[in-house]
């Protein structure tokens, strides 16, 4: 890399960094005050998917299955690390429910102890608001063999079984 290339690259990085902002509504990354998803009128504002990190949005968007909006918490509750509700964007989520007429909140936090703890805590906070609160099912990886599944995942997949239509 020549010195000039390096300078150009450095300028480009600075530019991207300056233009990248955090969405004021959902805390996704984007450019401008609202991210591309919040700005998209075709997306259903009454269903909000709650995630820990903007990278989770990228993963869910890849499924092309979800047409609602998001809310980024900025982490997960971890009592042992001292991360409490005040360090996450939980108040901001609760404030969105009424004005945006949210009917369903999907709790899409990670399937580990911190993520589950966060989901339970949010479910408790959202319960009095009279909307549907759901949690993503944790199931078996598609394309994997049953015999290689860990017992916690397999146990939950059994618990979340569904009727098969004949």
């Amino acid at each position, binding site marked *: 890399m020549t010195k000039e290339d390096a300078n150009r690259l450095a300028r480009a990085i600075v530019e991207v960094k300056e233009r990248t902002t955090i969405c004021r509504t959902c805390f996704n990354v984007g450019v401008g005050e609202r991210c591309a998803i919040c700005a998209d009128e075709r997306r259903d504002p009454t269903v909000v998917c709650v995630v820990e990190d903007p990278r989770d949005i990228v993963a869910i968007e890849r499924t092309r299955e979800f047409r609602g909006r998001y809310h980024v918490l900025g982490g997960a*509750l971890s*009592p*042992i*690390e*001292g991360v*409490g*509700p*005040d360090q996450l964007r939980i108040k901001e989520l609760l404030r969105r429910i009424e004005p945006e007429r949210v009917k369903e909140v999907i709790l899409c936090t990670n399937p*580990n*102890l911190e993520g*589950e*703890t966060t989901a*339970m*805590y949010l479910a*408790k906070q959202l319960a009095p608001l009279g909307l549907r609160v759901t949690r993503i099912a944790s199931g078996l*990886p598609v394309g*994997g063999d049953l015999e*290689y*599944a*860990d*017992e*916690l*995942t397999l*146990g939950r997949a059994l618990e979340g079984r569904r009727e098969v239509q004949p």
Partner: protein
Amino acid sequence: MALYRDEGIVLRTTRLGEADRIVTLATPEHGKVRGVAKGVRRTKSRIGARLEPLGHVTMLCWRGRELDVITQVEILEPFRSLREDLSRLGPAMTMLEVADQASAERHAAPELFALLLGALRTLSTSSSTLVLAGFLWRFLAVEGVSPVVDSCATCGCPGPLVAFDPAEGGFLCRRCRRGQAVGEESVGIVQRILGGGLRGVLGEGEHASDDEVERLGLLAVERHLDRRLRTAHNPLSPYGAGGSAE
């Protein structure tokens, strides 16, 4: 490098690089173990789910210089009922934090391990509100710093005991009183917990003083460990945000 097998309870995990985790476990034979679990954050890893906090496992490890390498893990008890109930998860996390702070790495600690495992099992089945308190007071006994609870810690008189001060070493009589004022029922419950009557106390249902007994235990444990327990002062715990036993 030596290979060893032990059982363990996962106390906490921290991320390492892209896909690995450092897992801290309490074990009976090797005390606190810190080991690397490779590739566990990839969804395909079976070991990952087994190495979540609260998991009671048996494992095979390579002894390393600072960190061991965890190779095989089988789950003995996943303690799902603790994970899926906030009112049980709070006390369980405090037990894990106490065990984490107390145990020395690579020094056998069978009594502490047995206490932790027993307390988690009880917590997962019992509806008593004294399980954490029982753990805290018994922990002090296992550590060899059991407070004086049957007579005044200062003058040795038989009581009545009306106060508690961990700095003085236990309960205090009216003349020597310092620290926290305590009720008669609390004194009785603590005496039974430390006198071999924990099972009986847990079987009795709720007492009015359960909270106080837990708060005093927390105070004594925090003094012994010389630090505040994070998990005991957060909104998931009965004391709520910023609540303190001090």
